[in-house]
């Protein structure tokens, strides 16, 4: 009894068969270690193999890995629908822009400020909203995302519609992070840190509490878990990931404008999380890669590429509603 009510169990013959070996690979510790080493080696040589254009695209993909892993804490682990995640991304980016350009603060000192600002914003938005037992969060975060973007458009300190430009490239212990390749490696480090943090969070008291609350709020409360506090922790953690992504996004491009933080941006990040199978770290990484690299790989199709990409996404959602990465619970 109660074994077959899992959504998506036994739906997709063809893709499930494909996922079988993938799951076996992910289960085998030695194979997994070998896979990780191969992946790291690929990351190191990629700029030399694929050239500068690809390096820039891959850097962008790595940024999305960081953002998607952050949103994954909120949506995937804690089960909260956040439709305005780009707002935290904007908070990070504008903190760097304003503090380095208008106040003259060293780039690295803006990091803690961005983290604190995002955390504070997270508490202000999440604190009252997460008390409510429904999907208010989706509406409130949607509104918050738009308010942040519109504010940025209309305030002189954020440079109005044209945004801020001329953000300086940072130095790190005598290394001037300046070329696309420099930024690529910087984002490699960020993405690896984001993965490590995600893995550790998932395997912890707090990470389990997120899942308890996501699966059954009442039972979680009956087990002594403060659901509001635990959800707020997820929301703020996600906010900090987003802000850090924004900080490095700003120095990478050197210029930011309100349109980088639109609703479409939030949806794109959310899509990476859902595509990957909420809560599954390798899946979310893959999701972020698909969302960014997909349209690039289809570039030869010209005008049709976005259509083909959209249809591809739809097919994946249709045939693997719980994400491309095989889930737990296959052990019957």
């Amino acid at each position, binding site marked *: *009894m*109660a*074994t077959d009510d*899992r959504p998506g169990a036994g739906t997709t013959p063809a893709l499930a068969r494909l996922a079988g070996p993938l799951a076996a690979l992910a289960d085998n510790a030695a194979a997994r270690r070998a896979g990780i080493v191969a992946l790291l080696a690929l990351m190191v040589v990629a700029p030399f193999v694929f050239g500068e254009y690809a390096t820039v695209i891959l850097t962008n993909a790595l940024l999305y890995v960081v953002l998607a892993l952050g949103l994954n804490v909120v949506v995937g682990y804690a089960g909260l629908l956040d439709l305005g995640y780009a707002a935290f991304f904007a908070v990070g980016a504008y903190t760097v822009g304003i503090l380095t350009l208008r106040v003259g603060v060293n780039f690295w000192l803006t990091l803690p400020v961005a983290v604190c600002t995002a955390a504070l914003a997270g508490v202000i938005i999440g604190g009252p909203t997460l008390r409510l037992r429904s999907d208010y969060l989706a509406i409130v975060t949607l509104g918050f995302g738009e308010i942040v973007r519109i504010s940025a458009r209309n305030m002189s300190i954020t440079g109005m519609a044209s945004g801020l430009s001329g953000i300086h490239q940072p130095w790190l212990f005598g290394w001037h992070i300046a070329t696309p390749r420099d930024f690529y490696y910087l984002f490699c480090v960020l993405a690896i840190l984001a993965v490590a*943090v995600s893995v*550790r*969070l998932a*395997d*912890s*008291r*707090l*990470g*389990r*509490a997120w*899942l*308890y609350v996501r*699966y*059954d709020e*009442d*039972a*979680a*409360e*009956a*087990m*002594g*878990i*403060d*659901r509001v506090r635990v959800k707020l*922790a997820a929301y703020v*953690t996600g906010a900090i990931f987003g802000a850090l992504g924004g900080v490095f996004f700003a120095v990478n491009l050197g210029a930011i404008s309100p349109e980088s933080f639109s609703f479409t941006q939030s949806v794109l990040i959310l899509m990476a999380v859902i595509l990957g199978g909420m809560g599954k770290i390798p899946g979310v990484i893959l999701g972020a890669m698909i969302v960014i690299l997909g349209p690039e790989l289809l570039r030869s199709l010209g005008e049709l590429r976005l259509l083909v990409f959209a249809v591809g996404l739809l097919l994946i959602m249709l045939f693997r509603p719980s994400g491309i990465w095989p*889930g*737990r*619970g296959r*052990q*019957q």
Partner: protein
Amino acid sequence: MSGALLQLTGVGLAFAGNRVLDEVDFAVPERGIVSLIGPNGAGKTSLFNCITGFYRPHVGAITFGGHDLRRLKPHRITAAGIARTFQNLRLFREMSVPENVMSGMHCRTHAGAFGAIFRPPRQRAEEAEIRATAAECLRFVDIAGDWNRVATTLPYGHQRRVEIARALATRPRLLLLDEPAAGLHGGEKQELIALINRIRDERGIAVLLIEHDTGLVMKVSERISVLDHGVMIAEGTAKEIQANPRVIEAYLGQEDAGADLEL
């Protein structure tokens, strides 16, 4: 009854004018095994929900170990020492058996995001304690093997016991069991009786039981209370309850219950 562990006085609850509990007085003594019986819809589960903070009674007092529970949220009540199981299984799906039981230790531990990311010795010790407690509670309810399975794929009787283990992991002083024998077969019911006695005898935990299997209730309880249409109509030992004319009348109102009352 002023020395009782749990004390309800004049508790009343209504939904949209529909009275579910009416001036209920009720107590569970320290280390007692008490049962709450009554026809379907009598308000037994609602009473549990009042005690555990899921429902707010409109009138009346609820104290636990002398402390007022009424304004506390459910998670605070659990932390104060009351654990519960649910009438319908409420295990965390897609999570393993030990992961389910570890949820009980949440209110006894403290590590947050910082601890999770940086893993200081304190956090590691706490994590080890969580796992050890979960393992110990699973052994206590006699779930061996199967540990890496998703909890909701276990046989039904085992799932019930995992729920009890999960409640025990909160280190309660009072355990509320909502129809724990529902869906169990004869042998499993005997094991449940033994388990309830061990919970009290070996751990000193008081047990409050809602149960429809009157035979089981008569065997395991020291005191029995009978709820009917939100009113507490009788309280006493198994013998006293079986002889009580109001109880017999309440049960005769139900189609199948006449025979239920016999041992």
